[in-house]
């Protein structure tokens, strides 16, 4: 449904409900999008919006309740883990917490080597060793670090190891699930540059999940805005940040503090209240309970994702609102 020139991944009607019974938690509720080859797609939204659940379903770390996930023209949404296995070398994930995602009892050599062994990617000890050294070099770590344990590294270095592990099997698609949020700003910048370089070098396709709107603007080609398991808006990055159409996107951008005291927010509209429970989402538009522009009709109809400009989609009944010009200074 979105513009899909050469999609590497195409998702249709993806749902994930947790728990049985009359009121399951609707973590992801009917999401459709595509990721083009070589593209970095950003996925933003507040906690509980379903970002990580989508990321994990795409590489089948979680089983979808319903829907299709087409990877290289094959629906992988419901295939068995055994059938998944050969595909795993083409899809990898970088996790948020570099402290929890590396086995503390394994040396870096084992952590990286395990991925190579599983997929039979290095034959013989010499080749294995050479590949591990190459991977460490790729992420800016010294080859002699291979004999260390994770606790001997700082957070930024650990995240580099996480990146090296994901790259070990030469994937074509990477899910980066908040890979920067555990890191300090100065270290974040190092990892952002690393991801940019690797993307350019290997033509990686990436789903970049984050709640940091500035990093997403910097890194991504297109962005999806999620709220309560539903897509509110999809647009190319520049369009989304400069001419957001959905009231939620506008509120999210207005709430994000600009690191420039010359541009202080003055009397900006703040969203009231909290994100509702995904076990009992509002009827109609899920955002209507916090939306400053909600009408009675918003409680009746679930707004469909509609194309408002080429490549720019939004799910909102109100077409009479002017797109907010967010960044007045830019042209």
């Amino acid at each position, binding site marked *: 449904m979105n513009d899909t020139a050469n999609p590497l991944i195409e998702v249709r009607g993806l749902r994930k409900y947790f728990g049985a019974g009359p009121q399951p938690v609707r973590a992801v509720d009917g999401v459709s999008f595509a990721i083009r080859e070589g593209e970095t797609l950003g996925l933003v939204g507040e906690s509980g919006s379903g970002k990580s659940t989508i990321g994990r379903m795409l590489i089948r770390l979680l089983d979808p309740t319903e829907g299709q996930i087409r990877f290289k023209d094959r629906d992988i949404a419901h295939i068995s883990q055994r059938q998944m296995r050969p595909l795993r070398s083409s899809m990898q994930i970088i996790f948020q917490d570099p402290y929890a995602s590396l086995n503390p009892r394994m040396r870096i050599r084992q952590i990286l080597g395990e991925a190579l062994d599983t997929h039979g990617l290095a034959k013989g000890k010499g080749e294995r060793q050479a590949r591990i050294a190459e991977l460490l070099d790729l992420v800016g770590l010294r080859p002699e670090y291979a004999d260390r344990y994770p606790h001997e590294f700082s957070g930024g270095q650990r995240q580099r190891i996480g990146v090296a592990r994901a790259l070990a099997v030469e994937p074509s698609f990477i899910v980066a699930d908040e890979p920067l949020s555990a890191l300090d*700003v100065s270290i974040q910048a190092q990892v952002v540059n690393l991801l*940019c370089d690797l993307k350019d070098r290997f033509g990686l396709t990436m789903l970049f999940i984050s709640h940091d709107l*500035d990093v997403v603007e910097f890194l991504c080609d297109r962005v999806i805005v999620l709220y309560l398991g539903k897509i509110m808006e999809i647009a190319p990055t520049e369009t989304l940040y400069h001419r957001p159409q959905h009231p939620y996107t506008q509120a999210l951008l207005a709430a994000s*503090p600009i690191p420039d*005291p010359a541009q202080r927010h003055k009397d900006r509209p703040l969203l009231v209240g909290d994100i509702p429970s995904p076990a009992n989402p509002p009827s109609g538009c899920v955002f209507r309970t916090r939306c400053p522009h909600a009408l009675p009709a918003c409680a009746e109809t679930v707004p469909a994702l509609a194309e408002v400009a080429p490549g720019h989609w939004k799910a909102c009944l109100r077409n009479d609102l002017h797109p907010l010009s967010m960044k007045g200074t830019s042209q």
Partner: protein
Amino acid sequence: MNEPITPRLSVRGLSTSFMTDRGRVTSVSDVSFDIPSGGTLALVGESGSGKSVTSLGLMGLHAKGSQAIVGGEAWFVKRNGERVNLLALAEADKRRLRGNELAMIFQEPMTSLNPVLTVGEQIAESVRLHLGMDRRDALQHAKKMLDLVEIPAAERRLHEYPHQLSGGMRQRVMIALAMACNPTLLIADEPTTALDVTIQAQILALIQRLQKETGMSVLFITHNLGVVAQYADRVAVMYAGRIVETAAVGPLFAAPQHPYTRGLLACLPGMAVRGSVAKSRPRLTAISGQVCSPFEPPPGCAFAPRCALHIAACDTAMPPLAALADGRQARCIRVNEKIEMTA
């Protein structure tokens, strides 16, 4: 009113060291700053820079087991005009100030609230202790406080437990608790770090409103430069336990003087996107390397190993915090050379 106004809090030469398995380690030294009445000072820095250690030292909240030694002075002007050194007060006097004239909110509201007491009881406890109210008045006061921090259905929330509230609501309760005795100094240690941006904006707007209404001073501790730019009056940047630069917020962002501050601002993707003219994606100018270990501090400037402007003289001694024009300060021996930094 011709005399210079005494700041609400005046910290001079604060230092803190802790006992560890590897011996005594100094994590904060030579920290000095002033916060005027009604003003907001942001203490900015990355993890391990000593921001929280500074604030806990002021409140006298270091864990007993850490065998903290806190040096220096912290002169606080009480409501009655009396000036006291917070670091030299007897424990009983400190207790009378804490939660009363001095209040603090923390990053993680779930771990700072008592899970087995209702929200109302926790707020009431503080006003019964400090303002001597009886149980019923205290609970009434607690309700007033929940109204103050804009918690809907305050009457009902009063009887709920922390786990029944969302993260944003819990932080509002923490603020209600801090505001209960009408403090003159609020220390906010990363109060919005655990919250989503839309909730962060609500909480910051709330703190700003309360500050305007009560005239309290705020020491705002954060690593988020966006929040600093939006809310602080003055900024002190910390690196490896020392203040490396202080300035009013506008000049600091417009023309950072210390290489670390410059590097920190250049790291921000938001700045890079805004600053770029080319169509291609710019690279972030990252600061190379990482913070030095407190066990093996470098011989001279602590930032020298990562600094793009490093020269041999940087390694001879820790540079002093030098006074610059317009009440600014920077801890760098090359600060007057006006060097343009290139990536």
